[in-house]
C-alpha cells in the first residue's frame, strides 16, 4: 500500500487557507520533488504529510508504523539547551555507538561528535540533521530545502547521497528544493505547487506544462523566473 495518502486535504495557517484540495499518494522508493514560489505552501504541505499540521478539511493517512526521517528547513537550538552532536542523534530513540559513528562518518562530521550543535557551521548542521534522519532507516525521507547552507559541490554530494540512500533503503524521498535543474533531473515525479497542486508528473512532462511555465518560465531562465513570477502570476485557465 501507499506510504502516505492525502485526499482532498486543505491546510490552514493562522485561520488562512495556505493549501487547498491536495490529492497525493507517496509510494515506496520514489523521489518526489516539490517546487513552487515562496509562500506557495511547500513547507506547509510537508508539515501536513508528517502530521504536524492537522488538515482543516480532508484526510491524511500514513501506513501503519511508518518511519519518517524528517530534515526541517530550519532548526533553531535555544542557547540555553546544551546538546552535543552525539546526543542529538539519540533523539528521540537511542542509537548504538557504532551506528552513530558510522552515520557521522558518512556525514563527514566524524570529528564533531562531542561538539555542541550550536557551534556547527550551516553545512555541518544540515549534514548532521540528515545523518539523524537516516539512522532510523526511514520508509520515507522528507527534506525541506535541505541543501541550504551548502555550497555547490556540497549540494551535489548531498544529492548523490540521497540517491545512494534511496538505492540502499528503498525509501521514498519527498523534497522541497530551489535547485530546479538538479532536482528536476533527479526526481521520479515533480509536484508544482502554488496554493494548490498546479501540475504534477514526470519531470519532462511537468517542465513543459503550461502551469509550470507560467510559474517558472522556460529554458535556462527558469530559476530566475521563480522569484519574478511570485507576485504576478494568477490562475485563470486551470484544469484539475
Amino acid at each position: 500500500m501507499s506510504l502516505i495518502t492525502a485526499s482532498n486535504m486543505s491546510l490552514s495557517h493562522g485561520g488562512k487557507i495556505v493549501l487547498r484540495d491536495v490529492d497525493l499518494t507517496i509510494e515506496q522508493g520514489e523521489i518526489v520533488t516539490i517546487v513552487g514560489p515562496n509562500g506557495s505552501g511547500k513547507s506547509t504541505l510537508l508539515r501536513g504529510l508528517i502530521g504536524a499540521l492537522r488538515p482543516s478539511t480532508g484526510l491524511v493517512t500514513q501506513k501503519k508504523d511508518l518511519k519518517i526521517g524528517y530534515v526541517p528547513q530550519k532548526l533553531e537550538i535555544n542557547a540555553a539547551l546544551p546538546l552535543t552532536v552525539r546526543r542529538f542523534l539519540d533523539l528521540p530513540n537511542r542509537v548504538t555507538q557504532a551506528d552513530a559513528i558510522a552515520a557521522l562518518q558518512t556525514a563527514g562530521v566524524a570529528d564533531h561528535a562531542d561538539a555542541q550543535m550550536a557551534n556547527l557551521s550551516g553545512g555541518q548542521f544540515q549534514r548532521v540533521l540528515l545523518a539523524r534522519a537516516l539512522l532510523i532507516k526511514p520508509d520515507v525521507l522528507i527534506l525541506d530545502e535541505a541543501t541550504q547552507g551548502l555550497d555547490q559541490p556540497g549540494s551535489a554530494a548531498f544529492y548523490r547521497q540521497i540517491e545512494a540512500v534511496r538505492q540502499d533503503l528503498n525509501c521514498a524521498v519527498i523534497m522541497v528544493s530551489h535547485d530546479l535543474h538538479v532536482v528536476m533531473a533527479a526526481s521520479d515525479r515533480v509536484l508544482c505547487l502554488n496554493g494548490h497542486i498546479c501540475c504534477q508528473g514526470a519531470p519532462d512532462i511537468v517542465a513543459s506544462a503550461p502551469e509550470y511555465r507560467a510559474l517558472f518560465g522556460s529554458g535556462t531562465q527558469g530559476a530566475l523566473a521563480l522569484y519574478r513570477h511570485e507576485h504576478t502570476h494568477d490562475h485563470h485557465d486551470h484544469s484539475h
Partner: protein
Amino acid sequence: MLDDFLVRAALAGLGVALATAPLGCFVVWRRMAYFGDATAHAALLGVALALALDGPVIVGVLAVALLIALAVSTFSGRGLAEDTLLGVLAHSMLAIGLLSVSLLSGVRVDLMAYLVGDILAVSKQDLALIWGGGLAVVALIAWRWQALLTSTLSPDLAQASGINARREQLVLTIALAIVVAVAIKVVGALLISALLIIPAAAARPLAKTPEAMAVIAALIGSVAALGGLGVSFEMDTQTGPTIITIAAAAFFATNVVLRLFVRKT
C-alpha cells in the same frame, strides 16, 4: 529525627530542589518563565479558595494551578502576543490572589508565609506531600524525557517521529502545577519560579548535555536550599528569600565570574 523542625526543613528544601531542577530546565529551554510565574501566582487564589471552603490548602493550590496552567497551555501558540498575555496573566493572578485573601473576613491568614514560604513550619504531613509530589514529578519527567526533549527541540521533528508535541506540553503543564503545590510552603508563591529558573540557568555553563544540566541544577538547588536554611538560621532572615539569594549567587558565579576567568576552547 523528624521531630526536629530543622531536619524537616532541610528535607523539605531538598525535596523541592530535586523536583524543580529537571522541570526548571524545561522551563528555561522552552522559554516558559512567565508561564511558571502565572501558574505560581495563581496558587495564591487557590490558598484563598481553600481557606474560604475550609478545605486543605494543598488541594486548593493544586486545583487552581492546574486550571490556570491548562488554560495558558491551551491558548499558547494561537497567534496572540504570548509574552504580553502571560505577563498580564501572571501579575493579575497575583493581584486577584492577594485581593481574595484579604477579602476573607474572620480568617487570620499569615499572608507572608504564602508569599515567601515558611519552611521552618513544615509538618511531617507537609514533608510527605512534598516528597510524594516531588518524586511524582521527577518520575513523570524521567519517563517522558526523550519525547520531551525532542518536542522541545522542534515540535515538527517530534511529530515526524510519532510524538505528539501537544501531549508532551500537557505533561509539563501537570508537572508544573504539582511543583507549585508542593513548593509554596517552602519558598512561597512569589519565589517558586525563581527556584525553577535560577538553578537551571546557573547549571547551563557547566553542562554539555541536557542530562548533565538537570543533575547540576539539582545539586545547585540542594546547596542553595541547605545553605539558605543555615544562613537564615544564623542571621535570622526569611528562609525563602535567603535560598533564592544563594541560588542567584551561584548563577552569578557560573555565568559571570567563570566566563570572565576561564577561557573556553
